[in-house]
């Protein structure tokens, strides 16, 4: 068990997406910082202990708990992170859409780490507080979540995310028909892979009890998504 003060802890940071959380010049509330020191299930590798194949990922210091956990098995890290990066980083799918997928999927899977880490990123991608709240808080397959989005494409996407992420078994035909009406084949593939990759990370982060960085908690407090006693 390791005490960990996570730093760069959003998937987008892994993917080298636009840096969305401004950590400079912000002092996390002491209370938030204290509660954010969480015991991860496994020891998180420090920059000083970074294995040889993983050192590049620690070159700028603490790379965040997903990388620090994966570094326990460097031969998996060096294939997993490029894959995750490729799926999550900027592509033909715009940033806002990707954050919708990541945040909604993570909320359905009840991944505290992923939901908290991606809430600031989602806001920075252009999603409104109301949209983020709908993504985070309205249960899967609840029509109110879909209704929170005005655009037809995004409504179809919401149905698709809920249907794919919720599982098990076949995806609802109505969701499949809707996504095909609004997205090209390559976009459906990419969005679905993004949901699947987020599911992987959701369970990874939840099972290993990865901690959220204090600066992220501070941002959540500022944005009204957490209170200071958290």
């Amino acid at each position, binding site marked *: 068990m390791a005490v960990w003060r996570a730093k760069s802890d959003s998937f987008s940071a892994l993917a080298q997406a636009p840096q969305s959380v401004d950590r400079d010049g912000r002092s996390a509330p002491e209370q938030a910082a204290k509660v954010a020191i969480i015991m991860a299930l496994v*020891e998180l590798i420090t920059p000083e*202990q*970074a*294995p*040889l*194949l993983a050192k590049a990922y620690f070159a700028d210091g603490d790379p965040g708990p997903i990388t620090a956990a994966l570094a*326990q098995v*460097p*031969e998996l890290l060096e294939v997993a992170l490029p894959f995750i990066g490729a799926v999550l980083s900027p592509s033909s799918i715009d940033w806002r859409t990707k954050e919708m997928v990541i945040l909604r999927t993570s909320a359905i899977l009840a991944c505290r780490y992923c939901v908290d880490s991606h809430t600031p990123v989602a806001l920075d991608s252009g999603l409104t507080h109301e949209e983020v709240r709908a993504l985070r808080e309205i249960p899967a397959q609840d029509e109110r979540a879909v209704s929170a989005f005005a655009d037809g494409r995004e409504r179809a996407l919401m149905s698709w995310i809920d249907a794919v992420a919720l599982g098990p078994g076949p995806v609802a035909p109505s969701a499949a028909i809707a996504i095909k009406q609004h997205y090209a084949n390559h976009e459906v593939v990419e969005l679905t892979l993004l949901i699947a990759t987020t599911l992987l990370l959701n369970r990874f982060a939840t099972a290993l009890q990865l901690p959220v960085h204090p600066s992220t908690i501070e941002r959540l407090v500022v944005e009204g998504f957490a209170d200071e006693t958290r």
Partner: protein
Amino acid sequence: MSTETREAVEQGVLGERVWFYANYHCNLECSYCLTESGPNVARRLLDADWMVARAQEAKELGFRTLGVTGGEPFMVSSMPDTVARLSGVLPTVVLSNATLFTGPRLERVTEALAGKDVHIQISLDAPDAQANDSKRGDDNWQEVADAIPRLISRGLRIRLATTTEAIAEGDLERLCALHREWGIADEDHVVRPVVSRGRAALDGIGVEAGLHDLSPELCITADGAFWSAFGPTVRNGRVDTDFLITRTTAPLSVPAHAMLRVAQARPRGNDATLGIR
């Protein structure tokens, strides 16, 4: 793929030896021990058949020699036979403190290893008991001094390893005179610095050793594959990962090729400077 590693060994990009950390426990508790070994530590054993299988793979990959270390390998009762089997695959050196070579264990070691392509590399750090025993434990010097002639007389091939922060020229000369008297040639005497890892680091002694200071020898342990036998050290009970290559150790080609990638990424001409081996 074996051609690639074979060529790397031939060119010196990879060291010719594959090391096995057979176990981590030891009957001694030396003050500078890299692995914090002692009688009560986690044993982290490698299975004998498993090591022989990896040795076969090492040969196929182009490695030329094997090393067995610990802990004290001969704490494992089956170690003489294991080393004999390994030496049937590739020439083998086994590191030992030599303090267990008495009675039935001496007989087993002699029976298994005499005449085999095996060197037993024995640690002795000073020409005098006081200087040696302050680091390696009471009576260690005398036990080693008694054991070496006994082993040599039984046809076992012995090397000597001296690990020291600093040794006066006169002391080194006396130590060398001693090993020559025992019949150990100069080329079979290794003098190396204390490396600041494990117990030595906790005591604030030894030299800092980086990637370029340690020979690119693949080292296999129960915790994974590491760069150099100086890589899989233990500090405060946990295994260091800064020289970890892969957790995968079988087949051996996985860590071998991963290590080759690390070795090839090193700047050319940036050779080891500390001569640690």
